[in-house]
């Protein structure tokens, strides 16, 4: 599977609220001397004027699949452009999709899951979200799109850090972590970030999930086991808590939920439970990820999801001495935390 997926053209989705610095990052990516050629799909032709790169304009056309499910949406224009670009395979190494500042990243990501032809030729590499250190906190209050973009991110480029004080920076980081503790976060000025930190991440690659996110299994210990103390307060103001110096905000509706078990899971219980969960709560669940240890199974099982869509596979053998631990994370809105925890725990073989 890794061999096959490596032949597919990697696609980086670049998102971020208006004015955060997407175009700056894009210019940086395109103008750096990396010896690679990118096809860039942009929603608005801005100040980008790069020779030798394919730059294509796209419409913001989102459509629902005909099953009537509002969380199964696809970008029709993206499908069209991907089809066209595939005629020129070999002319570029990777694709960057720059979405408008107001875009919901879900239909973009889902296009790579749902569309058979797109999936055959391209693989989603990562969702990179540029955030404005000075204004993000305000946007999280008034712009649901900004929140979705943070929740969806595999990599967050926290830009304009030079425009804020240290406490302000700590606060905005805490707000981001309250929504999405799993994304890699890079603090930048003028989007100065190493390209290797934003491109070729393989964040949607089931084979690489843990290699690029080694903290995936550990992150929870820093701020996850507190989760159940804070969710579902039922009142809608933000508040902070200190945990060992980490100021931890909880957004009133967007949250992350992490589950773990060092005892094996019963696949015959877990898989139907997970499928049922995303089928019924998929609108609330933006992203899901998991690494699973099943009973009588020497392989690690990994899965990845966007709303209702799930993709999973056996990844590799558990290494000797490696703790056989399962961990699942959900990022979403108004997640039914207790039901999810109870459902997960019912799959643990004791």
């Amino acid at each position: 599977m890794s061999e096959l997926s490596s032949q597919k053209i990697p696609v980086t989705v670049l998102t971020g609220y208006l004015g955060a610095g997407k175009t700056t990052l894009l210019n940086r990516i395109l103008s750096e001397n990396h010896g690679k050629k990118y096809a860039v799909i942009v929603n608005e032709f801005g100040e980008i004027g790069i020779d030798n790169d394919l730059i294509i304009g796209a419409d913001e056309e989102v459509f629902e699949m005909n099953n009537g499910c509002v969380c199964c949406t696809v970008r029709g224009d993206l499908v069209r452009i991907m089809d066209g670009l595939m005629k020129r395979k070999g002319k570029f190494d990777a694709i960057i999709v720059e979405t408008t500042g107001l875009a919901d990243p879900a239909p973009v990501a889902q296009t790579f899951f749902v569309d058979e032809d797109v999936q055959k030729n391209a693989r989603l590499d990562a969702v990179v979200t540029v955030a404005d250190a000075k204004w993000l906190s305000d946007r999280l209050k008034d712009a649901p799109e900004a929140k979705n973009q943070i929740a969806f991110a595999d990599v967050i480029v926290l830009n304009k850090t030079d425009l804020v004080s240290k406490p302000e920076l700590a606060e905005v980081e805490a707000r981001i972590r309250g929504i999405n503790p799993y994304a890699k976060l890079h603090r930048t000025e003028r989007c100065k970030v190493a390209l290797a930190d934003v491109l070729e991440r393989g964040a949607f690659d089931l084979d690489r999930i843990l290699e690029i996110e080694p903290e995936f299994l550990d992150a929870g210990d820093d701020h996850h086991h507190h989760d159940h103390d804070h969710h579902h307060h039922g009142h809608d103001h933000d508040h902070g808590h200190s945990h060992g110096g980490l100021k931890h905000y909880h957004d009133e509706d967007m949250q992350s939920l992490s589950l773990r078990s060092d005892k094996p899971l019963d696949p015959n219980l877990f898989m139907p439970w997970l499928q049922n969960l995303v089928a019924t709560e998929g609108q609330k669940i933006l992203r899901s990820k998991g690494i699973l240890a099943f009973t009588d199974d020497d392989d690690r099982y990994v899965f990845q999801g966007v709303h209702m869509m799930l993709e999973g596979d056996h990844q590799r053998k558990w290494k000797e001495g490696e703790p056989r631990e399962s961990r699942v994370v959900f990022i979403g809105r108004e997640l039914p935390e207790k039901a999810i925890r109870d459902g997960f725990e019912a799959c643990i073989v004791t």
Partner: protein
Amino acid sequence: MTQFDPGERPSIASLTDQVRRLAIGVTATAVHFLGDTAVFVGTEENAALVNQAGEISTVAIHGGGILCTTSDGKRVVTGGDDGKVVALNAKGETSVLATDAKRRWIDNVALHPDGAVAWSAAKTAFVRSGKSEEKTFDAPSTVGGLAFAPKGLRVAIAHYNGVTLWFPNMAAKPEFLEWAGSHLAVTFSPDNKFLVTAMHEPALHGWRLADNRHMRMSGYPGRVRSMSWSTGGKGLATSGADTVIIWPFTSKDGPMGKEPAMLAPLQARVSMVACHPKQDIMAAGYSDGTVLIIRLEDGAEILVRRNGSEAVSALAWNAKGTLLAFGTEDGDAGMLEF
């Protein structure tokens, strides 16, 4: 004129050793015949012309990817990601019919027997009549497919949530046929009575134009990429499944309430279909590179090309039905003469 007659041949006969292999030097996205010259349209930049003697010549037609192509038997018209609409004749002469002012991709092209040409870039559809008048229509969303009606100057524009029937020469409001979902390729039945779209979902949708009654044609495992009307418009052959699916259009209700014929099952997906222009036979190309000729009456098959390569991406008969040409995604091509 020698005509192919599958008559008494047993099933799974093979013509593979009679296929002329062609080193066309392009990966064909389509093939059309201009007389007895096969025009293989590449995925980018070039077309390869192959005459009946098997001589190959390459012509540059676009400065980039070739996104769409059509032919009326007299010329091949293509649209590219260079924003150009280009016409090519059997002598290999090209002419630029239009250049998009904003250099947008030309996603669809269509030809009318009287010489009119239509194309689209993003949401805008253009029609240039034989008299070189140009008209435009802005669809509510990106144009997925374009087709001229067999009669009159009427254009079907497929888009999200339906099809618009546009009369470029009339002030009348375009007619809108609504059906939820994203509509891509669109085709009129040769008798002008039905309109069928291939949707983004693995399904077709159709309308009976007399009363706009809906026809839902679903059950495909994959998206329908290729459609071809059998001779006389009796059936619509389609790709998208591991058999050729042929919907019956002989009655006034079309395929409403009827089962399609399912012919030539293989362990591969049908990728291209091309019905013979005069007889009740057709050619089908598969995702594993197989090419078969199929008799519509009973599904008898003749092997033209064996499996073992990338998908068949181009397939066409000449107008007389004496030549069959095919191309595959890995650049192989061949021609069979009857």
